[in-house]
């Protein structure tokens, strides 16, 4: 339990885990008093302290307010390592490489489509493969096409008719992580991935039709073309079996490498190797492939969302205006240059269950968002709300431009199922105006609101700590889940 980890309050939203034992730096947790009490219930703070033990860590071992226990690195963890003498760890990225979110806005208003929601959701469920073994027959890639896709990411999808070049401008890294090398991906990963391209997957993945319920910053919302009452769509999915296998393969490689490079691991799942090592470079090249797989996924699924809307509402794309606001990664390692103590340093920033949140005028954000900063998309559980934020200077200064990613679970799936037993969850949601279609009955029960932290609390901490600025709150109307 984390109750025995010493933690000191820095201010209302920042807590420090002091350097002790084998820690090379402090831990920094973003949370308020109430959230910290919940965080202490699992071993996540211990995990923050463990990450602080890894070689070449720059700055602190950080935790976002949605932090919860993961394997090795906590989920909601951020840690950066010097590219010269630091390490890369697949556990610091996660199994679902580039699990991420994209937000589409539209020219439809919620009041106009309210009655169509069940039909719309049922059609989305038909058109978008979700659930075990489901996939569309019209998307089949040859081995060479797949390798091509792994290098080009969302760009591959666009050049094959899924969406437009304009979309690419509004994706993190333009939908393509550089350095992807399909030669460093195992046959197993290919075989797991080839039938899962552009599929939703289960667990907390979903496509959600909602609307803008509240706008907190009118000026920023205007730049994002968001306004109150407007229909929005969120797509949340990752790299499926492909990414999971890449992570699995490289954990084995990096476990051996940890021995070879004599790295003292507080937890096997923190296995790592120097950034400059052959092992790490191959991992990053394979990780990039998996990340691009996920970018491609979201690009294709968004295209099918657009087609579905056109089918249901019998209007063309221009009238629908289902444009991409932004697409972000939640599980990734990036090579970025940051200013540390006045000096520019090249770092490997691990964000596991955390989102990049760069401020206005960053070089790496879209031209049209230069004045407002990078959009950050924070999905909540299927029964409540999601948020749109933008990145800030404070985030860049304190967390290498990182912020939270979502609600974070508080209850195991097993417990959630127990609590949900006997309740008609789908009916409960319908009574609240949310129509849900899930491929697996179990998934819906596991995803009840009670199983998650209230994302509103998570977002408020991030906002008040200054590492993200609230722009809008979205409310779900219809959801499809794997």
């Amino acid at each position, binding site marked *: 339990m984390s109750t025995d980890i010493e933690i000191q309050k820095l201010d209302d939203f920042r807590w420090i885990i002091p350097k002790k034992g084998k820690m090379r730096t402090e831990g920094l947790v973003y949370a308020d008093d109430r959230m910290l009490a919940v965080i202490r219930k699992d071993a996540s703070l211990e995990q923050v302290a463990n990450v602080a033990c890894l070689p070449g860590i720059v700055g602190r071992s950080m935790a976002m307010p949605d932090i919860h226990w993961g394997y090795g690195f906590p*989920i909601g963890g951020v840690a950066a390592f010097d590219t010269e003498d630091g390490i890369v760890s697949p556990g610091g990225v996660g199994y679902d490489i580039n699990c991420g979110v994209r937000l589409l806005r539209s020219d439809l208003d919620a009041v106009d489509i309210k009655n169509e929601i069940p039909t719309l959701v049922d059609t989305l469920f038909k058109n978008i493969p979700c659930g075990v073994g489901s996939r569309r027959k019209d998307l089949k890639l040859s081995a060479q096409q797949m390798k091509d896709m792994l290098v080009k990411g969302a760009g591959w999808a666009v050049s094959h008719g899924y969406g437009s070049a304009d979309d690419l401008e509004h994706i993190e890294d333009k939908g393509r992580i550089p350095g992807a090398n399909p030669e460093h991906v195992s046959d197993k990963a290919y075989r797991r991935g080839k039938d899962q391209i552009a599929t939703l997957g*289960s667990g907390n993945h979903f496509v959600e039709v909602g609307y803008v319920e509240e706008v907190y910053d009118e000026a920023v919302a205007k730049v994002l073309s968001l306004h109150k009452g407007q229909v929005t769509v969120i797509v949340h999915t990752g790299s499926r079996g492909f990414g999971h296998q890449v992570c699995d393969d490289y954990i084995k490689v990096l476990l051996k490498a940890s021995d070879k490079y004599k790295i003292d691991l507080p937890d096997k799942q923190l296995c790592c190797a120097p950034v400059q090592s052959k092992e790490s470079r191959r991992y990053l090249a394979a990780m990039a492939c998996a990340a691009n797989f996920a970018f491609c996924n979201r690009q294709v699924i968004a295209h099918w969302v657009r087609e579905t809307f056109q089918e249901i509402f019998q209007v063309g794309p221009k009238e629908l205006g289902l444009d991409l606001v932004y697409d972000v990664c939640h599980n990734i390692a990036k090579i970025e240059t940051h200013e540390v103590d006045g000096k520019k340093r090249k770092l490997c920033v691990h964000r596991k269950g955390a989102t990049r949140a760069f401020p206005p005028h960053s070089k790496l954000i879209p031209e049209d968002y230069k004045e407002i900063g990078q959009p950050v998309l924070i999905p909540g559980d299927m029964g409540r709300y999601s948020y749109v934020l933008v990145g800030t200077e404070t985030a860049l200064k304190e967390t290498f431009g990182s912020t939270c990613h979502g609600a974070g679970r508080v209850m195991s799936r097993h417990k959630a199922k127990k609590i949900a037993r006997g309740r008609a969850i789908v009916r409960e949601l319908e009574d609240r105006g949310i129509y849900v279609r899930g491929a697996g009955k179990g998934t819906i029960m596991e995803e009840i609101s009670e199983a998650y932290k209230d994302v509103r609390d998570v977002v408020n901490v991030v906002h008040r700590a200054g590492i993200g600025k609230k722009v809008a709150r979205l409310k779900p109307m219809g959801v499809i889940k794997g």
Partner: protein
Amino acid sequence: MACKHDKTAHICIRVIWATACQYLTEGNLLSKKYEFIDHTADLGFKAYGTGLEELFAHAAEAFFETLVELESIKEREERSIEVEADALDDLMVSWLGELLYLYDTEGLLFKGFQVKQIEDNRLAANVRGEILDLARHEIKTEIKAVTYHKLYVKKVGGGWETQVIFDI
């Protein structure tokens, strides 16, 4: 129902029966095959066995019980599996990882496990099961990966015990 025994007694009997079903009777020895552990974002289990081969077989059962009701799987086809690793705990991950891979790529669900031999961190097994049929098998949870987190395979008392956490 018209019965002279009260409702509490019936419930007790049902609970005892359900718990007993989780146990294996081997001659006079009553021992548990596996039990699930609760974790916030993931799922895990502890499995037991009198020998290593039995342990690995029980772990595989726990794996498929996580996916579907083990009882709903029919033994229609057989496969041979061979895995090796550097240590016993790595072997457990490789073993379950191979089963996950077969499920993910071929939709295979297994129920019968004959672990023939575990020696020098090498495992050879025959496994029996069938291809997923959504009409008969209800997927409880999808498993993304078998993790190394809090993993162990160790001798305990007169037998063996393992703990495995899945990423789900």
